[in-house]
Every structure is written in C-alpha cells, then in structure tokens.
C-alpha cells in the first residue's frame, strides 16, 4: 500500500544524484548550519550539563552518570511516564478513530456544507493550547462551570471533572478537541490521493459505500495512520501546556511531576536543579525513541 504515497523516482535520476552528492550537500549547507546551531549545539550543551551537579552551597561538581542513575530510581518520574502511557493507550486511539470517521464522512460527499464541517472540526487546532486549556478549565469548573450548572438544571450530578480521578480523561478531552481536526486533515488528504479508477472498478464490481470505505479507503489510510500515530506518541510524552495551565484551577489533582515535561520544567526553574532536569529530559527522549521504535517495528511487521 505504501507505493500509493511513495514518489516514484526513475533509476537514472538516482544515479545522477549520487554522482553530484557534493553539490547536493552544498545546497543543504544553510540548513545544516542552522540545524547544528539551533538543535545539535543546545542538545550537546544539555548533555554536558547533565553530567554535573550544581548546588547552592559547594558549587558545581562533576557527577558522571549519577544524575541518570537517580532518574532511573525516581518514583515521580516513573509515575509520570506510566501516566502518559495510560494516556497514550486511551486518548490516542480514541482521537485517531474519531479523526478517521470524520475524514471518511467528509470524503463520502454526503455531508451538507462539507467545507463548513471540515473547517469547524479543524478550527480548534488554530486555538493556542494555553487558551484552550484555560477555556476548558473554566468549563470543567466544579462549582460554577457550565457543565456542572447544566447537569444541575437537569437534575443530575456531574462528576468533578477537575478531581484526581477525572483529570486525565479531562485533559484527554482537551487534547482530542485540539488535535482531532489536524489528524482529520491528514487522513482526508490521504483519501484524496486515491485514484478514481479504483472507485470506478469497485462500483463495477458492485461495491456499496460501506464496502468501498472498508476495502479501499481504510487500507489507503494505513501510511497516514502510522504517521499520525508517531506524531501522537511524541506529543503525548511531551504533554505540558494543558496540565501546566490546569494546575492553577486544580492544584491538588496536578502535582509538580504530573507529566515528565512538567516535572523537568519544575526541576529546572522552580528547584534550580538544571543538571538533573537535563538528565531527566534525555531519559524522557530515550523513552520516546523506544516507544516509537516498538510501534514502528510492530506496524511494519504487521504489514509484511
């Protein structure tokens, strides 16, 4: 199925490319320079920092890998990673399924005002996540929030969406609201690349709308699904803005190490433990690489 999306490169052009490799590097040099300055250098500096330990009394000392050893045994870090893992296996599938359904619906051509629907689902993506979190934080409010008030008028009691128990689903809802449209657009774009001949062939074979969706459209979405899943894995483990903003309205449900990113931020800027925060960030990076690699391997094995 991957062939539908992969650009077809004639063999002759490929040969030319390897011979003129040096020139090619010249063309990407401006990018490489900025990449090194803005990405590699800070990363290297952070790695360097993570090998030291600076203290208010006694200054900075070389600590070797001690910071990393501490991270491995840090219960707060472990809890944060596990919390994000729970988030990953619940929120991400829900969001992607929803996005696929929306994309199929719009692509089916049976919607009234499809452009309007497409835009309104996509619009939340344009809302800055800080604003989104503030807004939802207000909607969730246990005393004066509209959700509670509405439930109250209907004579039912709404759960406290800002409590310990509901916080993760509540954040999941915000993230889904923000990103479902973005994923939908990717799926929709993938659906548009399906050559019309296939639909014609399917129609000739007597396939209905559902059959076409299941046997032609869904398989065509597989590469896009893998892509969005990887984006979501990375995004999940880097979850920061939403819990950070929500912690002001629900301080007891979101502690300082609620997500690994929030923890790293607090370590660096509240505790002034920059070195430890750097080590923790690398550990987090390793977790992300690991989870993504496992996903990619599993996905490719299934395909073959």
């Amino acid at each position: 199925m991957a062939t539908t999306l992969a650009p077809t490169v004639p063999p002759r052009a490929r040969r030319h490319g390897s011979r003129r490799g040096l020139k090619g590097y010249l063309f990407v040099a401006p990018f490489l320079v900025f990449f090194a300055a803005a990405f590699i250098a800070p990363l290297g500096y952070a790695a360097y920092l993570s090998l030291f330990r600076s203290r208010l009394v006694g200054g900075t000392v070389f600590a070797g890998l001690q910071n990393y050893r501490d991270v491995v045994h840090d219960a707060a870090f472990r809890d944060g990673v596990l919390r994000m893992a729970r988030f990953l296996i619940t929120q991400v599938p829900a969001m992607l399924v929803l996005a696929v359904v929306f994309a199929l619906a719009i692509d089916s051509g049976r919607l009234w005002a499809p452009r309007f629907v497409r835009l309104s689902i996509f619009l939340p993506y344009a809302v800055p996540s800080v604003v989104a979190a503030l807004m939802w934080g207000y909607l969730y409010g246990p005393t004066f929030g509209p959700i509670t008030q509405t439930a109250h008028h209907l004579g039912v009691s709404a759960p406290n969406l800002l409590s310990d128990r509901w916080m993760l689903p509540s954040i999941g809802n915000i993230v889904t609201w923000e990103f479902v449209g973005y994923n939908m657009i990717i799926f929709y774009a993938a659906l548009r690349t399906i050559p019309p001949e296939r639909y014609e062939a399917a129609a000739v074979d007597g396939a209905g709308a559902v059959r076409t969706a299941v046997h032609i459209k869904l398989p065509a979405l597989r590469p896009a699904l893998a892509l969005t899943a990887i984006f979501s894995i990375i995004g999940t483990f880097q979850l920061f803005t939403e819990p950070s903003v929500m912690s002001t309205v629900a301080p007891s449900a979101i502690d300082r190490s609620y997500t690994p990113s929030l923890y790293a931020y607090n370590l660096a800027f509240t505790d002034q433990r920059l070195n430890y925060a750097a080590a923790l960030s690398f550990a987090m990076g390793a977790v992300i690489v690991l989870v993504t690699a496992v996903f990619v391997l599993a996905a490719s094995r299934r395909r073959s």
Partner: protein
Amino acid sequence: MKQYLLALTAAMGLALAACSSSNPTPSANSATISPSTKGSITFWTWVKDMDKEVALFNKKYPNIKVNVVNAGQGSAEYKKLQTALKAGKGAPDVVQIEYQYIPTFTVTNSLLDLAPYGADSLKNKFVDWSWGQVAKDGKVFAIPQDTGPMGMLYRADLFKKYGIAVPKTWDEFAAAAKTLHAKDPKAYLTDLPPNEPGSYVGLEWQAGARPFDVQKADTIGVSLNDAAAKKVSTYWSGLVKDGTVATDPDFTDAWYQGLASGRYATWLTAAWGPLFLQGTAKDTAGKWRVAPLPQWSTSEPAAGNWGGSTTAVTKQTKQPAAAAAFAMFLNSDPQSTALLNTDQSLFPATKAMLSDSTFLGQKLDFYGGQTVNQSFADISSTVATSFQWSPFQDYVFSEFNDTVGKAFSKKSDAGAGLNAWQAAVVSYAKDQGFTVP
C-alpha cells in the same frame, strides 16, 4: 522587645561599619548621583503604571532614563531573573522582588548591597519587620516597597443575616463556620486555598511558627512542622474535614465568582486585599467590612504578613549608583510613596505613610465608609519581626501544594502533609549542600 531591637540596630550599625571596609566600597563620587548624572537603567516590575513614579524621579534626575519592563508577576519574573543571572547577562539593573524571595537571590550573591549607597540611613523610615526582611548583617539587599499585614474582610450583611458576631478568636471563628454552613449549605465562612502557601504561611506566622532559621550561609534550620505550625494545621484540618470551610484554589474564575456571590463570607487576606476585592466584586459594594484576623490569644494580638514587595539592584548592573538611587527614591520619597498608594493601591511600608492622616482617614464606600487603612495600619504594628525565609523559597512553596495543600483539598490528615513538607524540604536542602541541624 524594644530594647532588644535597639540593641540589634546598634549591632547592625557596627557590623555595617566593619563591613564597609571589606566590601568593594564605591568611591564617594560613584556612590551618589547628581541631577546631571547621565544613564539608562532597566527596571523589572509587575506593578502597573510605574511610569508615573519614574516621571517623579526624572524631575529630580532628568538625565537618567528608566526603562520599565513587565517581566511577569512573581514566580514568572523570578524564573526569568534566575535564568539571566545564570547566563551572566540580561538581568535588569533594578528589579521587584517579594520579601520571601530575597534570600533566594542573596544566597547566589546576586543582589547588590545598597548600604554603601546610603540605604542604611533609610532604616528608620520603614516598618521594623519589613526592614528586618531586607537587611542582614549590616547589608541592605533591597528597599521595602509595600507590605501585606493580614486581616479579615467579611460580609457584614451575611453575618447579620445568620446572626454571627465578628469572631475575635479562632475558636469563635470555628463556631461561626459551623453556624454559617448549617444555615446555608452552599456558603462557607471562608475559603482555605490549597494552592496559596503565601497566605497559609502568613497564618502560621501569626501563630508563631518560625519555619526557617538561617544563621550561617551554609546552615539552615528547617522546622516546617514546629508546634505552632502543627497547631495551625490541626485547626484547619478540623474545619476542612467538617466541611465548614471551602478549599477552592484562589485567583481563579470560580474563586472570583465565589467572592462575588457570597459563597465565602470572609476573605483572610493582606492589606492589599481590600482594593483588590473592590475591583473584582463590584456588585457587593457596601457589604464588606474589615477586622483583624481572629487571634490565638486575645491578650497578645498578632498578625502575619502575606506578600508585599521590595526593590532590589542586581549585581549585573553597570550603573550601581543610579540604580540604587532609583530604588531608594521610588520607595522613600514622600511624593512617590504617596503615589504608590493612591495610584497603584500598594499598602505602604514607610512609617511616614502609615501615620499620614489623609491616608489613615480615607473612608472606603465599598466597606461601608470604614477607614480600612487605619485598620490595617493598626494590624501592621502587630506583625512579628523575626520571621525568616529560606534561600530556596520557590521549592518550598511548590512542595507545599503537593503536601499540605493536597491534604487540605483531599480532606486528609494535614499533619501528615506537614511532615511530608518538612521531609521534602530537608532532603532538598541537604541535596543543595546545606547543613541542616
């Protein structure tokens, strides 16, 4: 007590004299500035409309340009400041710092000692406890700007409606909380915000808790769970478990609505609270009154402090004399201090303002014509002077939310939370290289 203070003052004076020789003392020319002195300094503050005070300063020193920058409020500003200090450049010349964060910046040796620039002569202009917070061992690290002695704002109409007398002791307060909640299950006598270590520590301060004891630069006594702190946590735990006080986080939309709608019948707040409330709960005008905090012992009225800021000069400044002159002028010039009160609603830190008849006699309609300033000025004199903060207060406050604050919002044992707070802070202090006796 007064004699002790006098002795302390004298000792500080001596220490100062001893210190000034070892300090990199600026020469007579560079320590003071004249109207013709030229310069440009940057001032980080989150107080609005500071340009007005700058204009006053520029009347006297027309050639010093002051760039006022709002780098965020409280914690947000300190994070930027700390980053700039670590980077070695980018810090402002003059910066607003709350009292509780001064040790955080002196432990890293980031604040300029203002004594050589004449700040030591300002000592008697400021309320004793506030000066105690900015000066140590003859050095002056900041100039007090405003203070926040704590009192109680209450809804006189609700008190009357439910037959509650203004509580003078904490026992009466607890009884009133019970009465009020029984008569109106939707209302609470007060809110104990679990995310507000500042006000909670103010209440501990009142009860006599002394969480930190910094004697030497590398030694810090930590007793966040001392007897007085335990007394306070047991007290509030009881009210929280009975459900007679709310535990909503403060300064959120829901909390503002709570203040405006009568969900909370009192707000235990600082002297900057009255004007703040007036701006956020306009519809309740005329219904509020002011009283001192309920007391643990009526024979010895006491109060804690919550908030209030100082103006400090960072060591990164290239123009220490101009920066110091500005910090001192801003907070001690009579016109400037008057303006800080009238235009920016700051509760004064200077004795002159606190005994100024116009200031004291000001009647606020929002409080039924009560002379609110007089009430808080009286409270101000009952704030205990010997209160110390840690050199890592950001961590201490942040950990409060996850221990004591969490216990309150979960209605679990706040005593255990207090112990967890203590353990976390001790471990952090040791990790940072401090000796913790």
